[in-house]
């Protein structure tokens, strides 16, 4: 029994990997998604071009060059925080989750598939930041340690945001509520130090900013891509790499403690009747 159960679960994990790959492929061949994926870095490139000539307050350093690594951090946070919540709410409504539940070990396959897909699509959106990066390439300091640190920030970023996102997605009553999450994320971008140095913000906003992963992921990416001297304009004049891993780690622990609980509860409530009710609501109200 245990051997067989183990084999069955391993097969489900493998199936989950192909699910993740198939869904990533769907995402990358869907015209609307491709336009979105390409439009975002192009908009960033324009923003950076507009910023030309501006410097980080108190230094000679180009503001755009400081913003770009922050954008890398923001893309990781957005990919991990918005994506899963939206799809989980939608998958619950349209019956995808119910199908997973009706399949032996189907939930394992579903979750592995989601993690793989969000890791891959977020990676794509980060890689596409090469486009805006070209506008500020001279100012960045890129060496082998850059890529190592960026990879670490990426992994920690995913681990700290995806579980929280899963929790939020499970708690939402309908897919339409994902918009609220998007709105909240936009508001949290303001005190995150991504478009403007956090040290220039009022003290209370600095505290708000430092409570959420956006700031720390941006800081991590800056520490990887900017010259050492730029640490001087950060809070405490340091990259605070250790604190970054601690704060993101706390988010990861909270998320991973809550996610399985909330997900199980949601899956238990899922039934054909619930999917039917969602379908009727969407058919009659349009959302």
């Amino acid at each position: 029994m245990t051997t067989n159960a183990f084999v069955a679960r391993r097969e489900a994990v493998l199936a989950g990997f192909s699910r993740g790959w198939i869904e990533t492929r769907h995402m990358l061949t869907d015209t609307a998604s491709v336009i979105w994926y390409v439009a975002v870095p192009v908009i960033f490139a324009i923003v950076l071009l507009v910023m030309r000539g501006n410097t980080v307050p108190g230094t000679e350093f180009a503001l755009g060059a400081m913003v770009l690594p922050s954008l890398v951090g923001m893309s990781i946070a957005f990919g991990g925080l918005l994506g899963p919540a939206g799809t989980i709410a939608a998958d619950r409504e349209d019956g995808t989750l119910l199908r997973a539940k009706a399949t032996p070990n189907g939930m394992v396959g579903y979750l592995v598939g989601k993690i793989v897909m969000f890791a891959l699509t977020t990676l794509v959106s980060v890689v596409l930041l090469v486009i805006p990066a070209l506008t500020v390439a001279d100012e960045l300091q890129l060496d082998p340690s850059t890529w190592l640190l960026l990879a670490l920030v990426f992994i920690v970023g995913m681990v700290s945001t995806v579980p929280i996102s899963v929790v939020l997605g499970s708690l939402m009553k309908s897919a339409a509520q994902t918009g609220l999450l998007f709105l909240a994320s936009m508001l949290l971008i303001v005190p995150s130090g991504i478009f403007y140095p956090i040290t220039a913000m009022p003290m209370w906003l600095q505290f708000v900013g430092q409570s959420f992963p956006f700031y720390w992921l941006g800081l991590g990416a800056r520490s990887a891509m900017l010259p050492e001297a730029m640490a001087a304009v950060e809070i405490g004049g340091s990259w605070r790499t250790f604190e970054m891993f601690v704060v993101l780690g706390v988010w990861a622990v909270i998320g991973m403690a809550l996610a399985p609980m909330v997900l199980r509860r949601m899956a238990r409530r899922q039934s054909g009747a619930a999917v039917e009710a969602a379908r009727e609501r969407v058919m009659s109200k349009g959302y």
Partner: protein
Amino acid sequence: MSPQARPASPGNTIALAVRDLRMRYGTRDVLSGVTFSAQRGEVLGLLGPNGAGKTTTIEILEGFRMPSAGEVSVLGVDPARGDEAWRSRIGVVLQSWRDHGQWRVRELLDYLARFYVPFSAPEMPRPWGVDELIEVIGLSELANAKLMTLSGGQRRRLDVAIGIVGRPEVVFLDEPTAGFDPHTRREFHELVHQLSDLENTTILITTHDLDEAEKVADRIIVLDEGRIVADGTVEQLARQFAGATEVRWTLGGRRHVHAVRSGDPTGFVRDLLAKDEDVTDLEVRRASLEDTYMALVQRAEAGPSRFARQPDTEQRKGTGDASEAQG
């Protein structure tokens, strides 16, 4: 424990068993003491008007819902405690809506089939060959089509294929033909017959359509307000429900109705004609299974508050008078 194959021994032939099943939401009883069972290979139709408790019953059997009370056994296991090995022997045909719209037909079946591979046994190879299955449901031409491009009927056939890809021993279908045109509906019924005949699969199908239940089911259970009001083959039910017969006639310009509750109405008619030679427009009408079921559906749709509708009441009063007059 490896997944069990269908036992050949006649001793273990019960696939589904439900005893005194109860379900209560708040203070509302959705199921109040439902008891039935199904043999292996049997096609059981769960018939009833909307809100009778069909979906709740099937979702409890599928293991998607916990009953408030009662005993449930599917392939000898309580669905609430069913593990993944048990799950691999159960097929659930869900109504697809817009899930997996970007996936292609073969892609999705291939993916779902993989989960059943570890549960394969020499006497019960799992899953079905995907190409073979696609051919059975008649979607070979569309094997590489995206799900969102399929018509409603094509998608429904794919739903069935997904439900049975793991070669289940028990298949659950909840209102599978809702929104079908007559042609697609007939195709679907043939598919159900194929399943039960070729594979000896036990099938539980819910429907509110008597005609459909008669066509696909070996045995029909009629559910009304959370209770079983009838259980038997179509012939048995027809006999059971055909008990009441209405005799109508005109006498002295007045219309009379008498209901013969059970037995042969011939005696009553003979007496009537012998007693009064002026009887005209004689009608003897035996209520069919359909009449009885339609009355059930109408009552359920009207709701309990509007149960006693005005015209009915008057007619009933008239009937009573006439019957009394005839002694």
